[in-house]
């Protein structure tokens, strides 16, 4: 269903719940993977994803469609994931430099983890990146998001995003090749 129709249906009392269900079904997987690539564990992803859609339920009535719905949902998901990560770091008293160790342990605890598989190696390589650079890499490499759309989510210029992605690719490559 078209996003405009979904939003309009949500704003009508009699069709609100049905529209909301359809919206969740349409975007849940994309948002799920976007969050999980950030936080690694399924249970944490589930908690954050629920928070995201509760916010959508509260605020979709005020959504003016100045940006497309997809961008708006991703922005909420990104902010919720980053907030959660910061809270986890404060609780564990983990500094920014220990980011790699925290997620490395989480990765190793995942079901079917195999360090020889390129997919797991790639995940390990991505989690050595700073949070924002990790976001840029994931949105571009996995979600194939245009830089212009990414700029709307992250509030960064297209040029800066391209440079960030370029550096992220180089770092990941260096990790994979053992340099």
């Amino acid at each position, binding site marked *: 269903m078209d996003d405009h129709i979904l939003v309009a249906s949500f*704003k009508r009392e009699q069709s*609100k*719940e049905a529209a*909301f*269900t359809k919206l*969740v*079904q349409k975007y*849940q*997987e994309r948002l*799920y*993977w976007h969050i*999980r*690539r950030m936080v*690694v564990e*399924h249970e944490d992803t*589930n908690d954050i*994803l*629920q928070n995201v*859609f*509760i916010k959508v*339920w*509260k*605020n*979709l*009535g*005020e959504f003016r469609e100045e940006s497309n719905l997809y961008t708006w949902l991703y922005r909420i998901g990104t902010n919720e994931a980053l907030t959660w990560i910061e809270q986890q770091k404060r609780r564990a008293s983990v500094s920014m430099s220990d980011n790699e160790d925290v997620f490395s342990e989480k990765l190793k605890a*995942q*079901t*079917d*983890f*195999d360090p020889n*598989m*390129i*997919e*797991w190696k*790639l*995940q390990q390589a991505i989690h050595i990146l700073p949070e924002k650079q990790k976001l840029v890499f994931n949105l*571009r*490499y*996995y*979600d*194939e998001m245009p830089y212009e759309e990414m700029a709307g989510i992250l509030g960064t210029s297209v040029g800066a995003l391209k440079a960030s992605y*370029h550096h992220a*690719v*180089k770092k*990941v*490559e260096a990790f*994979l*090749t053992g340099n």
Partner: protein
Amino acid sequence: MKKENSISEELISMGSRLADYSRNMPYVVPEVFFVDFPITLQETIDELGVPDSVPAWSKKQPFSVPQGYFDGLADHISAAIANEITSSLPKSIPQQVPVGYFDNLPAQLLAAVKASDVVNKVVKVIPLKRRTNVNPIRWAAAAVLLICVGLGSYETFYNRQHSNPENMLASVTNSDIQDYVQGTYRVDVDHIVTNNDISNLQVDNKDIEEYLDETGWDQTE
């Protein structure tokens, strides 16, 4: 996930080997998670009692405003406030005059004048600071004193010539009278006074009357 050539082409243009790698996610997702998620989410929203979003009613105001209303509103309100303040002020002077004040004032002033005669005997240095607390009664007493002095002076010097003639005649000395009589009527006054006989005086009655008239003696007395 849809794989676009643009991503691979971009990686190739960077000279990156990531273009050759699989982009499949290695994470495991519980079965039917995405089937159940919308239902569990709605249950969560119901349990939390998440309030509905703000109704999408129109926020446009239906009321009309007179043209130019807001332009002069500030001045209008300021003037109204100023008018309200001044109109609430009382017109009458709150100070009251004691009963009988003006009736008793002359007697009070006179008493103050008499009292000031004693006070003025003592030389007093009045500091500038106390000038702000000058008693108006004292000033009034001084003014009354001056008036009295002026009136007294007028009484003494201006009305002197209108005083009693007998008193005026009594003030003339005997030698002055003798000199006058002897000079005017060629009469030996000493002889008259010694002998006390005036029968031989060759003075006309008419001359005596004229003399008495000139000296201010009234025949009717």
